[in-house]
């Protein structure tokens, strides 16, 4: 009898502990779970660049990882940007001066180019920062090029969203919206280690 009572006590402790956690702790929302799934997938994904539409122009951009936290973006126009963590800088190269209209577009909006170019480390950093700040990253669903996508918010001002294919979980595009510019991009995935 004493052994049964002891067993019951242990069972009660186990059930009460588990039950307490189940009842007393809040559960992550559906949106949080989606964002975590996207983050997991994003960390295994590499991009070789994107085709971005910004300021009325369509520009291919290639992304190369130089270091764990540093990527270099090269636009079809020859302009280059260096992205390190969440910092973006234009790489000046006097030998490759651009036409003034193109340079103006890039100079004014390096952040927009970086967010649209398919920089995995930047996306991961922005998404993690958002989740750790307790902000919701899930902005709903939509359809892009006939594909159902999740809209994952990476930034509020300016608004940056990553578009993730709901079926495959792969990031397929990005959106950038600010008072000065509106841009979208189609991301180009790669399996190459030089991708970023």
């Amino acid at each position, binding site marked *: 009898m004493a052994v049964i009572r002891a067993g019951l006590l*242990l069972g009660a402790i186990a059930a009460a502990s588990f039950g307490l*956690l189940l009842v007393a702790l809040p559960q992550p929302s559906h949106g949080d779970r989606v964002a*975590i799934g996207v983050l997991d997938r994003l960390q295994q994904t590499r991009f070789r660049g994107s085709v971005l539409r910004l300021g009325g122009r369509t520009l291919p951009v290639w992304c190369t990882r130089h270091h764990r936290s540093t990527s270099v973006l090269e636009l079809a126009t020859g302009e280059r940007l260096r992205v390190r963590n969440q910092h973006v800088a234009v790489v000046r190269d006097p030998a490759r001066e651009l036409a003034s209209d193109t340079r103006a577009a890039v100079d004014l909006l390096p952040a927009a180019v970086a967010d649209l170019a398919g920089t995995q480390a930047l996306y991961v950093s922005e998404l993690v920062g958002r989740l750790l700040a307790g902000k919701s990253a899930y902005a709903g669903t939509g359809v892009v090029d006939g594909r159902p996508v999740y809209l994952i918010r990476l930034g509020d001002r300016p608004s940056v969203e990553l578009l993730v294919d709901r079926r495959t979980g792969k990031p397929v595009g990005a959106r950038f919206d600010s008072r000065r510019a509106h841009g979208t991009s189609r991301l180009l995935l790669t399996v190459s280690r030089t991708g970023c």
Partner: protein
Amino acid sequence: MNQRSPAKTRRRGPAPRPERRSPLNATDVTAVPLPPPRRRPDRAELARVARFAAVGASGYGVNLGVFAILVHAGTPATAAAVTSFVAAVANNYGWNRVWTFRARGSIAGQGARFAGVSVATLVVNLAALHLLLAGGTRAVPAQAAAIVITMPLNYLGNRLWTFAPATPGLRDLRAGAYARILVWWGLSRTLVFATALVVQALRWPRPGWYVAVHMRPLALLEAWDGRWYRMVAARGYLALPHRQSDTAFFPFYPATVDGVHALGVPLQAAALLVANAGFVLGLIALYELARTWLPEKTAERTAIYAALFPIGYVFSMEYPEGMVLAAVAGAGAAAARGRWTLAAALGAVATLGRPEGVFVALPLAALALRRDRRPVAFAAAAAPVVALAAVAAYQRRMVGDPLAFSTAQHAWGRRFELAGVQRAVRELLHAQGQNLWLARDAAFCGLYVVLLVVALRAGVPLAWIVAGALIVLLPLESGSFTSDARFGLLAPAAYAGLAVAGRRRLLDLALRPAMLCLLGAATATILLRWP
């Protein structure tokens, strides 16, 4: 007051009856056990119940009256309920002490117990009020119903604990010790809060980190892991893959914070409230545990030194350390008194609060082996392990990894391995004075070991020493001394060692202000180490 002497009472009452005798003669007493004689309700007891009811009714009136006045003055219902409850508590304590029980002894000690019962009933009161308001009941009727629900709890708690008759002397001794411990707790916490406010007002040492004092006072005490615990309390476990993640933080503290937050208390305030209330309970439980090891005065000093301990500023931050200390020490004290079910529950709470809590299984098992070999005692010793399994099962269900609490530590560079201690020592040597915090943690690690040895020599049971050593030394296997000073806060035997070391009056007189100074300095420099 016109108090009757016992002699007068006897003369006025019925004549004393002759002692009830068994129908069997003296030689037959072992033959047939008689049913116990039925006790008639004592007239004095009934009168006490009536007086208690009258005081309760007056408290009800005070509570409802103050609440109605405040609500009509535009005070929010929850704030009005708290104020009216405090007014009713003061009314009830005064009348119950002076009139109902005609109690003597320490006003502070009895008041502390009365306040404890009142806080417990306040929590029930607020929960009931919250539920009734959520259900659409208007404020005053909701509070009236909530009082009806909570008043019997208040009555029973005070009748059975606060004013319960006890062995004279021992009770006064305990009440006095409680009062002195609470005074030192108040002193040390005032210092911690005041220092935190001053540092925040001065915006030192990171001007950009602070928010304004009037917007979020005591922001300093929300630093470091407080952010993670609040995150878990707000939205549960998210488990960021391959990153520093919230699953490293055990669930009992955030669950309690979330529960208090649900009563309408802001999240930050709830986190600080739970941490500091847990620490009060921790000090009382530590005193009760130390009484089972050491002489009365040393036991009292154990709790007082814990209140003053320089790293003890953590007990006032948004950390579970205070409530886990309460659970660990409470489990030990309950087991020492043979209350195994309570010990099992508290052991489980300790483990749900911090992984180090599981080590309380050792002293519980030792007590079960040495004193009480009943299965329930061994079950109590196994309860912390079962609670750890429950945490693993919960995290498996939530994030798919039963060891998520351990896996998440990898992102902080902590990984248990055989060469962990070597790595920790190497890290310390490489720091070469550049990382003062690491040196501080290593110094406290050494201090804890010395204190545990002192405690062992003073007669603290070996199992508590081993549990303390595991709490302090096992984290080194993960490759770093970082935070070891904080981990050691959960080793009750270390405080006992310090109390034994401070048994000389002069040393005691020197230690207390010295520890207070160090506590203030440690609080002021929290932000020197970036979380």
